[in-house]
């Protein structure tokens, strides 16, 4: 089996000559007996899988109308009417129907901030200020209680906004914790190193669901009687601690990749530990770890789907809620696929972005 050592990125160039279709086919699909067999097998797989999916998902599917049209095609075609009927419940959960413009607006603000933060040209101090103001605005939008907005408690939050809130907060708030842990793990002080290593390995050794169980069932026992933290905040705290341990390892990777000369240079300038760390080590290490950080964010974004196990209605949970309606229950799968599509689009575009940053960084190195 021939391994393409250059990787697919450079494949476009030689294959791009459209004048010779047969040549392209021979080059790319039938270059050797083994390749021909692989091509035929792949082709067989496509023929086996794609037509039934297209038939179910598109040709036989119903897009508009009522429940009876779905009942008519049940088993042979998809009922996308379910999505049309329930998309607001799936996207916004139990948030009061009339007020749903608020989580919608919050989602738009959050996505705009994320998009802006992805553009290197915007990496200026005012971006931090924009985030602060954005957080304030988002809090006002979601909770309300002032400016004539009705107060909506966190138990009504749900759907895509909740998923976004949980994952963005997880990354944002775990970041300082992660930096402290990563520095601690590489510290010269043995006890601090032990504590940080212990925490990181402990958290990385257990499943997120057990951390969420702990947040949901045990945290109330840790607090003095009468102190009551709401369920969402507890779950958020659990997710932050969990994410912190993983992000700490990512940052440690960046610290390790730093050339030793940098630290020696700082030492020779006579900088103290905090100066050395704050001005020399961290800025360089952090810019190295942006691509893996994006991957951590993707992982967290997907992981927040576990909160349904402790009874929060995130995007996935509210899809389940939508299928609680007995009449529509048979079309639960369509709801799951819709949610899967949202996750896929979000994560895939983030992953693309991460690749892009990585490539930029590599080009920067080559200069």
């Amino acid at each position, binding site marked *: 089996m021939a391994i393409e050592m250059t990787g697919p990125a450079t494949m476009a160039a030689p294959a791009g000559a459209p004048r010779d279709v047969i040549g392209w086919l021979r080059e790319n699909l039938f270059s050797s007996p083994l390749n021909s067999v692989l091509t035929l097998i792949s082709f067989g797989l496509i023929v086996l899988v794609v037509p039934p999916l297209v038939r179910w998902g598109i040709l036989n599917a119903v897009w508009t109308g009522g429940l009876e049209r779905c009942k008519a095609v049940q088993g042979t075609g998809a009922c996308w009417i379910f999505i049309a009927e329930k998309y607001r419940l799936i996207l916004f959960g*139990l948030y*009061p129907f009339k007020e749903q413009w608020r989580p919608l607006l919050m989602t738009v603000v959050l996505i705009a901030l994320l998009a802006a933060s992805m553009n290197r040209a915007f990496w200026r101090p005012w971006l931090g200020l924009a985030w602060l103001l954005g957080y304030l605005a988002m809090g006002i939008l979601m909770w309300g209680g002032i400016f004539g907005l009705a107060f909506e408690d966190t*138990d009504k939050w749900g759907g895509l906004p909740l998923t976004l809130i949980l994952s963005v907060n997880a990354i944002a708030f775990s970041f300082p914790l992660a930096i402290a842990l990563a520095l601690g793990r590489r510290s010269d002080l043995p006890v601090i190193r032990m504590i940080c290593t212990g925490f990181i390995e402990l958290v990385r050794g257990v499943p997120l669901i057990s951390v969420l169980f702990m947040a*949901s*069932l045990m945290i*109330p*026992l840790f*607090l*003095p*009687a*009468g*102190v*009551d933290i709401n*369920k969402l905040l507890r779950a958020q705290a659990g997710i932050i601690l969990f994410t912190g341990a993983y992000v700490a390892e990512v940052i440690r990777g960046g610290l390790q990749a730093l050339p030793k000369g940098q630290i020696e240079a700082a030492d020779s300038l006579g900088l103290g530990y905090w100066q050395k760390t704050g001005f020399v080590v961290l800025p360089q290490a952090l810019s190295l770890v942006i691509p893996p950080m994006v991957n951590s964010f993707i992982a967290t974004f997907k992981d927040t789907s576990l909160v349904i*196990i*402790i*009874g929060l209605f995130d995007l996935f949970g509210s899809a*389940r809620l939508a*299928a*609680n309606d*007995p009449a529509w*229950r*048979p079309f*639960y799968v369509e709801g799951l696929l819709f949610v899967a599509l949202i996750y896929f689009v979000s994560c895939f575009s983030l992953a693309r972005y991460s690749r892009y940053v990585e490539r930029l960084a590599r080009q920067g190195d080559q200069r």
Partner: protein
Amino acid sequence: MFRSGAIWAVAALAVVGSVSAAYAGPTLDAVKKADVLKCGVNTGLGGFSIADSTGKWTGLDADVCRAIAAVALGDANKVKFVPLSAQQRFTALQNGEIDVLSRNSTWTLQRDTKLGLNFTNVTFYDGQGFMVPKKLNVKSAKELNGATICVQTGTTTELNLADYFRANSMQFKPVVIEQQQEVLGAFFAGRCDVYTTDRSGLASTLKNDAPNGGADYMVLPEIISKEPLGPAVRQGDEQWTDIVKYSVYALIQAEESGITQANVEDLAKTSKDPAVQGLLGTPNAEGKTSGNGEALGVDEAWAVRAIKAAGNYSEIYDRNIKPLGLERGINALWSQGGLMYSPPLR
């Protein structure tokens, strides 16, 4: 210095926290202060507690919450319904996330003791049953040897099921799933032969969830367990326990005394029956009241509000449980051959 600031904050928090580790005040005071009753209910069970599309909770358990709120706060609408899974319910009560749990929970010895709870009354006498597809041609639970049975986790149901099959020397294969959604999905898809839960739950499922309006499914005659369902509170607050307990008893006594949501206010003014006067806190000819309210730590019109909130027990039952197709049976008043019996409210 951000770092040392953070450290000081942690230290300060720890010191403050260690000093304030005092006991929680009596529940009634807390409820009054919050001006809302936090009532734990089922996430969705027809007849007991289910939210409609506008977010309004209906059902027997939800109405019990309203009656308690009416007694404690004077307003049946000051209830915050907290939907809880089977797994979360007792912890939520223990932790003070809710003031009372009214979530079709079975009263058992160990829950009453080891979980630190007090069950106050029985609001519904239930029992576990089985649902099967009609095409299986099964007429009795005794014929279920070797069956695959779908059951939701976190309930007494799992235990009763195993007990029943052990007692009858039969075998079964459980499919234990966390969420109602998946349990029903699996059962109606044909993953299991049998679905088991409380009879009320089966009736609700048959009516609301089964395909074809339930025509292809049936509930077997056997009832394999006793499931007395009722509200629960934390141990250690006797006054609150009494308030919940007598709020419910007032509803039962109201049915017995013929007091309804419609006539309760009239009767409170006009009734000459000493028992009714005593319950409703109406002053007698000499202007004296029964003192029930004072004994409970609320005002004398407490029972009027409880009955006004959702009606007497039979009204609540007829509105919520009867539409499921369940007759009163053992849930009738004692005077009509049932088990519902209120101690004298004097």
